[in-house]
């Protein structure tokens, strides 16, 4: 046996089944929150903003909103997915099974990314009911969707390994990811900011994700697509390095 594909499939199915058990929460909450954002930002505030760079404000925020959900859902799914067996003790089975660490990561991250992509697509469908959407570069849109989901599922996986309590599981998403996302140009173009804050924003990795994703919709972006893509890959590489280190050292997994 060179690759234990049955193990990968088993873990993947197990994780997907977990989402399926809570399908109502998984689907309703993103749909509800998207609708709320549209009511608040699209209808109430958007009616005064009209358009940004020629795009209706209601449509302009769609890529950012999807990105916001994609990030939080990827992190939440993956971190919970690996943290829970550690918490419940069922991790013993994973550690004693004939699976390599790479296979474990592929299965957990694959499942977490799948779930967040499905949610992203549901949000896209919900948004399409509120505003007219065009997607200029659908292939790139899917590429950004996939890359972001995988990258942040890896990030979530690292958090799930690092956390030693449910509070810590919430800490990073709440204190770092959500602020970065809100300040990452999800609801505005960073070109609207004063020069100083625009420069500060360029240190926020989420800016590149939102900008690239928005480009795939409207063909325009705050920073060039090449830079967006490069930054996404950089973050992906950092996460892969983190996961590699965890498994090399057995950090928090093996005594």
């Amino acid at each position: 046996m060179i690759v234990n594909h049955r193990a990968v499939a088993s873990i993947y199915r197990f994780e997907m089944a977990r989402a399926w058990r809570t399908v109502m929460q998984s689907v309703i909450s993103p749909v509800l929150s998207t609708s709320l954002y549209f009511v608040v930002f699209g209808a109430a505030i958007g009616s005064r903003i009209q358009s940004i760079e020629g795009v209706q404000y209601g449509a302009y925020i769609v890529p950012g909103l999807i990105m916001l959900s994609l990030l939080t859902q990827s992190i939440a799914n993956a971190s919970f997915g690996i943290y829970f067996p550690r918490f419940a003790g069922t991790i013993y089975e994973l550690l004693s099974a004939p699976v390599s660490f790479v296979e474990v990561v592929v299965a957990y991250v694959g499942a977490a990314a799948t779930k967040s992509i499905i949610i992203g697509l549901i949000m896209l469908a919900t948004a399409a009911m509120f505003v007219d959407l065009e997607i200029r570069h659908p292939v790139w849109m899917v590429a950004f969707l996939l890359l972001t989901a995988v990258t942040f599922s890896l990030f979530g996986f690292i958090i799930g390994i690092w956390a030693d309590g449910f509070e810590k599981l919430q800490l990073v998403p709440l204190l770092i990811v959500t602020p970065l996302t809100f300040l990452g140009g999800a609801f505005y173009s960073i070109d609207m900011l004063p020069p100083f804050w625009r420069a500060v924003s360029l240190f926020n990795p989420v800016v590149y994700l939102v900008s690239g994703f928005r480009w795939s919709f409207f063909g325009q972006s705050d920073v060039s697509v090449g830079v967006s893509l490069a930054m996404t890959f950089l973050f992906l590489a950092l996460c892969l390095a983190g996961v590699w280190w965890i498994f090399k050292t057995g950090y928090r997994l093996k005594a």
Partner: protein
Amino acid sequence: MPPIISISQLSKTYSSGFQALKSVDLDISQGEIFALLGPNGAGKTTLISIVCGIVNATSGGVTVGGHDIRRDFRAAREMIGLVPQELTTDSFESVWATVSFSRGLFGRRRDDAFVEKTLKDLSLWDKRDARILTLSGGMKRRVLIAKALAHEPRVLFLDEPTAGVDVELRRDMWQLVRGLRETGVTIILTTHYIEEAEEMADRIGVISKGEIIVVEQKAELMSKLGRKRLTLNLQEPLSEIPDSLEPYRLELKSGGCELVYTYDAQGQRTGITRLLTDLSAAGVTFRDLQTEQSSLEEIFVGLVKDKR
């Protein structure tokens, strides 16, 4: 036949500095039931956890079926099933799903008939669709056993299998273990219930403070280390033991009606002949006598105490 599990110079020091295993050497033969006995904290679970891949050894090596557990971990782990000490289960899963999951995780092709047979053998078939959190503790233990057997392992580790288990389940479990042995499965169980080892095991290893103190065939261990007791039923009750008999360290029991003499059955001289002569000289007469072997529990307590 080469041993199915070979452990050599295995040591484990945890990051806290606690040395759980001190250069342990142990070979387990194929098809035997081996009981690892030891008090809490002796290193039983650490030893099992290293063989199963849950804990990293500090030094030393282990092979399972000739496969090194690090270099050839897939082949080694495929052979092993583990029933952990704690009742750790996926509470929200159904019994069927969790057992099928285990089979897949160990790389086995889906086989509903086998999973069905396993569940039936463990009286879990009626509960196959129940969520695990709705099951009793005993049932959860059965689920863990079913999960460990789902990939048809050649070696089964049972870590404290009957801790907190009722009589019926214990009996079922022993029956299951015997049945598995008949199919050639090697079984290693840790326990601090001596009667379990006495009842089940072919061979017994005693571990204390991270060291294997003794490994013996059960019968040999009992005869080698067993102390025997000679009980004499006296004609006339004694109020106290005569001074002349003091060197024998006799005990007076049953209100002075019985004299008990404990001796080493393996000793060159048991001292029985001399005792009987001295008894006669002291005018103590008896109408009956019997001897009994000390139990494994007594042997075990003696061994561990000596070590301290």
